[in-house]
């Protein structure tokens, strides 16, 4: 388990660096696919089988197919031909990243995981079934957020159709 986690964590960090650093958008997209699949494996390790399936279907499936499709359609140039570089942007970015990561680390070490423990131990979840327990929570305790999200999806669909149909002058 620990060895597996270390392997997947290293894979996650490498592919995330690929998403940030590759020069060609198709390489970024493929690195992001790898990153999302690795994340799905981490969800399995965390006993979240439903999230695993949703991650693979929605993210690695739908969202990334959309990205790759758009890249194939537009054939966007790499950053090299985007015009004059400002220079120094990576230095500022990495300085920001170090400070941000240090803040996150300090917060994590000082705060710890202090929430109240709930009733859903892995044994309870696995006795009912992962999808069943998540579905029950979705449609009882979290009914209102689910409905709001469905309205959001509707608005997104309407907006996408509007943007696709409208002609730009």
């Amino acid at each position: 388990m620990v060895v597996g986690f270390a392997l997947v964590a290293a894979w996650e960090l490498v592919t995330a660096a690929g998403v940030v650093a590759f020069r060609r958008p198709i390489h970024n997209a493929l690195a992001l696919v790898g990153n999302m699949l690795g994340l799905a494996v981490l969800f399995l390790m965390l006993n979240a089988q439903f999230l695993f399936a949703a991650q693979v279907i929605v993210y690695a499936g739908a969202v990334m197919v959309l990205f790759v499709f758009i890249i194939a359609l537009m054939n966007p140039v790499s950053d090299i031909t985007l015009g004059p570089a400002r220079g120094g942007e990576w230095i500022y970015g990495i300085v920001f990243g170090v400070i941000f990561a240090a803040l996150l680390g300090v917060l994590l070490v000082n705060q710890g995981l202090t929430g109240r423990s709930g009733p859903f131990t892995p044994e309870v979840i696995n006795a009912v079934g992962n999808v069943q327990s998540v579905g029950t929570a979705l449609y009882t305790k979290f009914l209102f957020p689910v409905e709001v999200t469905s309205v959001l999806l509707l608005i997104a669909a309407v907006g996408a159709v509007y943007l696709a149909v409208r002609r730009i002058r």
Partner: protein
Amino acid sequence: MPVPAYTFLLLSGALFTMGAIGFLVRRNPLVVFMCIELMLNAVNLAFAAISRYLNSLDGVVFAFLVITVAAAEVVVGIAIIVQVYRAGRQMDVDGLDLMKE
């Protein structure tokens, strides 16, 4: 518990930081979007880890909602990017400053 919770949270923080760096540094709007996805994924990992180690399902449910919102966001964002591309503008987030005028 073989893997302690804070390792998952540290990994999540590292992924989020890398996504934030990419969001600030990169200039291709598609890659900027991918970095946003990276950050959302990192938050999902934190949700799932906290949910697992506090024996709760709330984090899993909210990670699912985050996935939904991310899908909606990608649809609209890519539609806008395609419109900008069809308008013949340069694909550079620094060059897209029409709203300033």
